[in-house]
């Protein structure tokens, strides 16, 4: 299977799994909503019945915003201008690239989302690999089957990312970069050094991500129990199939297209419901891209080593354990 065929097949698989897209989008909503409610209350309390609310409702009341920030605590401190429009994307991507820490309250939600994603990813991969609807029972059954395996895999991934983000990042950006620019008098050169270091840093990060992606794919498609084996198999597949890198690049290009789209339409501070709708459309597209990575990688793997729709584990049946109710009377 070619890169393009896998890419297109992946898109079709995602298209045929709208509930998966909706579910993952919903997971972001459900996790972000409690903090949004907290922020809503903080903003409401701070505004009270002030006339400042009118300007804040109609546009950006930057004077009030600054006052709020000066007095805010907890989630309120994350309510900064950089959440506006496309700056939100820059802030988040830049935060990862610069390994910037997150406030505790925000980090706790991110961790919760990572945990939820770890649970859901098995079901999502299973659904995309089978390329047919399994129902909620089938989906969550697969989630349950893979969650412990992916937890083990997650420990290995965390170790790899820890090495990269804590040690390699620190070496590149806290030691090498200052050394490179120590006597530099031209900012443009420093900018290019930094961009080059981002690329240098991104290469191992993306490779690790790629290998772990295929480890998950192989764990699901081949029903692997050993995650060390899955990781090894994933790495083998990547090494023997340079197309994996090409596909990753193509999916990354799709990601950039989505980002570019949001760059063009990202709302500022003036509008209200339309702005929220555009924001949610963007988040849905981000979910689609995330699933497209998985779906196209599954398609490529199945195309190269198995066949489309092949999954080693039998279709889950509910209940699939010999429960007493299933045995029935007189048997």
């Amino acid at each position, binding site marked *: 299977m070619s890169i393009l065929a896998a890419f297109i097949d992946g898109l079709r698989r995602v298209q045929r799994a709208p509930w998966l897209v909706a579910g993952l989008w919903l997971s972001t909503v459900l996790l972000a909503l409690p903090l949004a409610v907290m922020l809503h209350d903080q903003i409401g309390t701070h505004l009270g*019945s002030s006339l400042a609310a009118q300007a804040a409702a109609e546009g950006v009341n930057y004077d009030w915003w600054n006052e709020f920030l000066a007095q805010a605590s907890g989630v309120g401190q994350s309510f900064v201008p950089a959440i506006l429009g496309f700056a939100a994307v820059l802030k988040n991507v830049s935060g990862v690239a610069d390994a910037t820490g997150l406030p505790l309250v925000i980090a706790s939600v*991110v961790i919760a989302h990572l945990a939820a994603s770890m649970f859901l990813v098995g079901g999502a991969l299973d659904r995309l690999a089978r390329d047919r609807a399994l129902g909620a029972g089938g989906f969550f059954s697969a989630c349950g089957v893979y969650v412990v395996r992916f937890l083990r895999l997650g420990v290995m991934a965390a170790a790899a990312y820890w090495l990269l983000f804590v040690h390699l990042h620190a070496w590149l950006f806290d030691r090498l970069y200052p050394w490179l620019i120590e006597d530099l008098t031209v900012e443009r050169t420093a900018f290019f050094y930094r961009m080059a270091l981002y690329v240098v840093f991104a290469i191992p990060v993306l490779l690790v991500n790629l290998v772990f992606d295929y480890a998950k794919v192989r764990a699901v498609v081949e029903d692997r129990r050993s995650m060390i084996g899955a990781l090894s198999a994933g790495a083998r597949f990547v090494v023997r199939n340079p197309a994996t890198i090409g596909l990753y690049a193509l999916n990354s290009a799709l990601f950039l297209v989505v980002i570019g789209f949001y760059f063009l339409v990202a709302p500022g*501070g003036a509008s209200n419901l339309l702005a929220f709708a555009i924001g949610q459309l963007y988040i849905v597209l981000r979910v689609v891209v995330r699933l497209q990575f998985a779906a196209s990688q599954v398609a490529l793997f199945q195309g190269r080593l198995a066949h489309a729709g092949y999954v080693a584990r039998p279709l889950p049946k509910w209940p699939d354990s010999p429960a007493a109710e299933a045995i029935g009377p007189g048997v």
Partner: protein
Amino acid sequence: MAVSKRLGGQVLAGTVAILVLAGGERPAVQTPLSPRTANYDIDVTLDPGTRTLTGGETITWTNTGAMAAYSIRLHLYWNAFRNSESSWVKQRQLAGDDPFADTPAGDFGYSEIDTLQVLAEDGTPAADLKPALRYISPDDQNLDDRSLTAAELPVPIEPGQTLRLRVTWTGRFPKNFDRTGAIGDYFFVSQWFPKLGVFETGGWTAHQFFANSEFYSDFGRYDVRMTVPSGWTVGATGVEQSRSDAGPGRTTHRYVQADVHDFAWTTSPDFVEHQQRFEHEGLPAVDMRLLLQPEHAGQADRHFAATAAALRYYGEWFGPYPYGHITIVDPAFQSDSGGMEYPTLFTGGSRWWAPRQSNDPEAVVVHEAGHQFWYGIVANNETERGWLDEGFNEFADSRVQWEAFQPNYLAQRFFGGFVPWQFTDIALKRATDTNWMNSYRRAGDRDTLSTPTFRLWPGTHQNLSYHKTALMLHTLERRLGWDTMRKVMATFFDRWKFKHPQPEDFFATLNEVTQQDFTWFFDQVYRSSNLFDYGIERFTSEPIKSRGLMDSPEGPAFQEKTVEGMFRTTVVVRRLQAGQFPVDVLVTFGNGEQARESWDGLVRWQQYTFDRPVKAVSVAIDPERVLLLDTNSTNNSRAIEPATEAAATKWSLRWMVWMQDLLMTYAFFV
């Protein structure tokens, strides 16, 4: 080349021709504008390889005081960068910053006096002061600080008498510390020569070098010859008089400037030189010379426009710029020399990626150009009363930005601070943003403005001297009106140009021009650290009802009464902080009518009641926001039907999209 351009494109053959045409001295200012109390004749050589300066200077100082001088004070500012024991570093450490924590051995700087002599009238040495020279630390008794020296004079200098000193010294550049130093081939040379203190009524005013404070010295004439590698561009206070060969690979540049109180210079082989002439009706023309970093080649027009705006508006508002020339230095990346003022020369500071419609570099260029007026011409003691120039200038530069550079959008930077993003929904406002309300709000009560600047709680110099003062002056502007405020400042400028004013001189000028006594105001904003916050405590508007025992022919009888068609609006306003300021209270009614009450703001709370045929819809205290020092304006108003829910919903949902994007960004790892 620069000189020939200034003379309308004539090509001049050399130094002699220049001198003949210029009458021996090129600066436009020929007639003394200042007392020229301390005059410096300096020769200095830069060795870029070892980053050292070797110099000799003759100081001619006249005692303009009322008493004899028995000693001298000489500043050696570069010793602040000598080691981690200097008072400058200790103050930085107190602010939580340790600039020398990882400094390599070669990056420290120093200044050492080699010889110090009193000269006789014929120029021959009359007395050797070097043996008597000692380091003093009158401000903090730090015996390890070497930024200030003293030496007893063999013969007192009586009022009106002149002292001539000959000093030779050696200095090594620190690496880019506190707006002086060197990095690569870029040298910014400030506070570099042994400099006298100021002899005033009470004796010498001379302080050690602290991180909080800047400088103070007498007006005089500077004749400086700087020897640097041939081919390197030199920018300096004053105007270049000549350029001569100084041996293999070296050139001496001579710059002269009178009626200034400091001299700074810079040299680098990398500068790209641009020139423009500022001309505006009613103001003297000024030749603007811009030394730009090559990577900022596209920003020449922005630097010139900002400088011209400062020259124009400050000139129109306060008084003309008298020197006829100004040099703008665009500092090298990482040089830490940006955003600093020196007479007829200043440093800006820009970024390689600098979006238009965000005032970077305009803000810093206007500010530093503005310092030519507040600091350069009106030369207050920055060490003790830094707010007099920094705050005045912040106030004025903010007004220039508002006049000349709109819109000015908020910009923030990402990816290591390199990639800017402009928020076109957030146009920065003069009153709060470019007066830096946030900065004042953070530290407004950490110290009082009347504390000598060098003693301010470390890290609060900007919050107080710059930003509190700007807000304080803008508050006065809003109370008095711009025409009156401009007149106050213009009078102060005219009265104190080429002199050293004290805060009381400004207070007196304000009182005189306005014919009001503002002592009450300065007692709070200058002599105390009081904060201001007025707010609405209660706001109701309801039908007028009363119940209880009412008068009746039979005596007190119970009644419940409602006055049909009438509503009672009750407002309670409160002073929530110690600061007192008269404010208005404005109530708006449902039919559009408004009622305004003036409150002196002295007591802690005040109630107002209005009986009207319509309900009130809103109330605001200080509705025009005259009191910009009020740190919390959200509580300044209330509405009967506020849009709070709409605002809270809108912004929490907007925040939620950011949070979801963050979750999706981190989902990459799973």
